[in-house]
């Protein structure tokens, strides 16, 4: 095979190309631009992402490239849309905060975001272990840096987990640093674990290509070991318990708009990776991996829902709720796996996963942006998120209904969507997942999940309670900045519109997995 053969079909990488070129272009532009406020780079990023997003519709991205290492199919395209949309909203909603943290260096944030996105989009189509791991890392590395993005501030007295760790007032303490470090430590260990699993997989399969692996691998203890390590390693990325420990801390510590991005895009990518592997070369070995996924589901549902209950910090709460939400995502995977196992074909489960991820993205980003909008209005111009210790507790929502009716309504909508209440997009996602799960024969899990999901409303409603049932006192009015407001508006409209008419989108998800 010559280098030119390898480039056959490379046009299906158009979107990835846009992102890659965009990232590099931003880097160059950043260097070339004179020092100063580089907000314009944010708009460029938006443009690029919008372009990429449009390209997923206008260009034919299906096919095979690089001799099978990269495949563009409906699933991959759909995933790319989720990533790009998440990136788009992440940039749009975070523009102010990014500019505030470092007006002169905001370009770097966008470059890192683009690079991370590149990792994700590549991941979606990767059919090669090497490409899979490289793109996985490409996605992760910038996230570590972005989580730690921000300044060092001073804080009031804080309690540590042990008395010796108590921080006296005014100590410099870097919340994003802690967020980034925790993400990094758990992430690095997890990815090494996953790598080890993949190396074993390579060992028993003798190739890095999925299509080959699917033929050559035999089930056995080593495969079980490898699969367990891979599932565990990727479960870190989607934040499934017990690999979720970084989630609440990073959510709380990192800047909110970034968390909005972090909480959806990498998770979707993690699912994409799991799907590539588990429903690709391992599709014939569902006996090996389904029990693991089932275990993750149960632990995630229980831990996520239980731990979210006592949280007073909204971002932490959403972190834990996200853990529980990932249980739903895994359920879709489980359903898909069962059908793949019994009938050997792609199933509706996969479509439900795609729809679920999209729904989760919309609602979750929305909530985080509402938090950001409220918190930002309480900050002074040169303050950043990490300097105020309490600007994301439940209390910041006090009387939001009066301080900003629109934001409160949007927040309510997102929260209800996450809680799975009808006529918001999240409801359809959850129900569809449960439907698929039932078809797969996990009736008891459906009951458990539905009941826990309903019980989970307890903490979602805490947000609604804070927004609607507490007096506003003398808290100031809240107005979201233009970009942020636009992002919230768009997301709210999406939540409503798809919630009211989910048919086309669900149909599209089915088409994407080849069920049309």
């Amino acid at each position: 095979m010559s280098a030119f053969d390898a480039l056959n079909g490379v046009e299906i990488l158009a979107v990835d190309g846009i992102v890659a070129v965009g990232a590099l272009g931003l880097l160059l532009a950043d260097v070339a631009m004179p020092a100063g406020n580089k907000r314009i780079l944010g708009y460029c990023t938006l443009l690029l992402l919008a372009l990429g997003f449009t390209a997923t519709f206008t260009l034919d991205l299906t096919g095979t490239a690089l001799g099978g290492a990269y495949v563009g199919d409906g699933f991959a395209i759909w995933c790319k849309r989720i990533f790009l949309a998440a990136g788009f909203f992440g940039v749009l909603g975070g523009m102010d905060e990014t500019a505030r943290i470092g007006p002169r260096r905001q370009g770097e944030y966008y470059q890192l975001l683009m690079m991370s996105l590149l990792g994700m989009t590549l991941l979606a189509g990767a059919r090669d272990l090497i490409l899979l791991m490289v793109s996985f890392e490409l996605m992760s590395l910038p996230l570590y840096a972005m989580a730690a993005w921000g300044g060092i501030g001073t804080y009031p007295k804080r309690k540590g987990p042990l008395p010796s760790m108590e921080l006296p007032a005014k100590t410099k303490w870097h919340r994003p640093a802690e967020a980034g470090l925790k993400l990094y430590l758990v992430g690095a260990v997890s990815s090494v674990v996953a790598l080890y699993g993949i190396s074993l997989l390579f060992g028993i399969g003798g190739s890095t290509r999925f299509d080959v692996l699917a033929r050559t691998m035999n089930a056995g203890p080593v495969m079980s070991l490898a699969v367990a390590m891979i599932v565990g390693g990727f479960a870190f990325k989607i934040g499934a318990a017990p690999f979720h420990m970084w989630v609440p801390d990073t959510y709380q510590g990192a800047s909110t708009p970034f968390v909005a991005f972090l909480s959806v895009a990498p998770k979707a990518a993690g699912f994409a990776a799991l799907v590539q592997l588990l429903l690709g070369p391992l599709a014939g070995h569902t006996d090996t991996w389904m029990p693991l996924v089932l275990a993750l589901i149960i632990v995630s549902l229980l831990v996520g829902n239980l731990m979210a209950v006592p949280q007073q910090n909204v971002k932490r709460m959403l972190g834990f709720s996200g853990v529980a939400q990932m249980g739903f995502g895994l359920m879709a995977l489980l359903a898909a796996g069962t059908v793949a196992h019994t009938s050997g074909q792609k199933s509706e489960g996969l479509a439900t996963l795609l729809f679920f991820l999209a729904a989760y993205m919309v609602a979750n980003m929305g909530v985080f942006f509402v938090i950001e909008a409220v918190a930002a209005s309480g900050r002074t111009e040169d303050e950043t998120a990490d300097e105020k210790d309490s600007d994301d507790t439940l209390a910041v929502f006090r009387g939001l209904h009066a301080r900003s009716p629109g934001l409160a309504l949007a927040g309510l909508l997102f929260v209800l969507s996450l809680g799975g209440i009808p006529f918001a997009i999240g409801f359809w996602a959850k129900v569809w997942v449960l439907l698929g799960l039932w078809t797969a024969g996990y009736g008891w899990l459906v009951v458990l999940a539905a009941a826990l999901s309903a019980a989970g409303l307890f903490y979602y409603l805490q947000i609604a309670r804070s927004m609607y049932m507490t007096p506003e006192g003398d808290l100031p009015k809240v107005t979201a900045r233009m970009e942020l407001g636009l992002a919230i508006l768009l997301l709210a409209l999406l939540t409503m519109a798809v919630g009211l008419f989910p048919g086309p989108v669900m149909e599209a998800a089915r088409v994407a997995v080849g069920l049309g």
Partner: protein
Amino acid sequence: MIAVNAEVLQLLLLLSAALFSLGVYGVLTRKNIIGLLIGLELMANAVNINLVAFARHQGGTAGQVFTLFTIALTVAEVAVGLALVILLHRSRRSTETDAAAQLHG
């Protein structure tokens, strides 16, 4: 050079397992983040040994290429990790993991 037959492969895999476990021990017991990174490196190294062993056992290029990639990945990861250590050190004057333990519950 010795041919990697089943026996050698077995030995290498066990070596890798041992290194991996040592790495696990390292990441679990170290309070210092750099020490923890050392454990991580051992684990990564175990991955590499695995890959090389399989590559040599099977004879293709893929394994070696893969190893190349993993080495690069590990290095990149450590680079970012160390940057984070420096950041933590700057704010807390400490490189212990417990210095980053304010967010909890």
